[in-house]
């Protein structure tokens, strides 16, 4: 189980809790005080991140893709910030 918190500069706090499957994301939960519209997309995003390797750039791209397909928008955090926090969580508690 890895956990991390990442305070976005000029933005909100992103928290990630995840389990690792080899070098990929097992289960993941993203919490925080950011805004994501539509809100329900967070669960789909978490599901779609499962099994993804810990590669920061690819993760950011993937999150961006899911958001664009759903015409989603975020305030106080970005796909890059989510990816950063996932990487930090992956380095926690090995």
């Amino acid at each position, binding site marked *: 189980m890895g956990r991390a918190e990442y305070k976005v500069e000029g*933005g*909100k706090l992103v*928290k990630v809790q995840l389990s690792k499957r080899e070098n990929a994301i097992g289960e993941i*939960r*993203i*919490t*925080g*005080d*950011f*805004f*994501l*519209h*539509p*809100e329900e997309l*967070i669960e789909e995003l978490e599901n779609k991140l499962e099994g993804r390797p810990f590669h920061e750039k690819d993760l950011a791209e993937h999150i961006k893709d899911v958001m664009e397909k759903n015409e989603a*928008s975020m*305030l*106080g955090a970005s796909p890059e910030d989510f990816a950063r926090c996932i990487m930090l969580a992956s380095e926690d508690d090995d």
Partner: protein
Amino acid sequence: MMIEEWRLLDTGLRDAFYNMALDEAIAIARSKNLVPDTLRFFRWEPSAVSIGYFQSMEEEVDTAACDERGVSYIRRRTGGGAVYHDRDGELTYSLMANQEHRLISRDFQETYKVLCSGVVLGLSLLGIAADFKPINDIVVGGRKISGNAQTRGMNVVHQHGTILREVDPSTMFRVLKVPNEKIRDKLIGSVEERVTSVNTVLGREVGFKELKEALIHGFQDAFRITLVQGDLLRFEERLAAKLGKEKYASEGWNFRR
């Protein structure tokens, strides 16, 4: 030119579950065109903690401390952070408007600024020099006096926000989780540097009635609308009762993340 009319509601002191359910019920009624664009004022009895849609109840709220004090805890349908809603310290507003309204833009940040201008102007009518501070705050001399959160769906924009009349930092940090016990007192002390209230700024007791009057004028002038005192539809009342019980008071909703 006809002045645009919005419905004005004041639902007084209600519990957290009804309060959050009624916001959703009004948004649904608005989406079905059953009601006009609406501004609502409300308060919380008992006092409550609300968390943002994406937050974890276990991580943000000391639910045992809440239970001891009779403070409710609830997840909002909007994002943002954890808020302590004090029965006597806070006035809350919500507005539900058609997404095609001239005040609403595609850009969430811009829309926060425009919708918060009603609160900023209302506070200025009381003699408080407040400013909107991105992303979603209103501040006086850098100290937060109002927090706001917005969501959209079914072609309706729903924004709700707090106006602090009075601050109670010790209860606030009793019911919210702190990173560790050692810094609790420090956090309580530093609230004065980060948060302010209507009473603090003006150095006198401002009643809820006076505060509401000022905000009504602020919203009217900032939005170029007339607020007309109205009533809830039976549809809204029934839907709010149902959503309050089945969604907002449920463990499944409040502890889902």
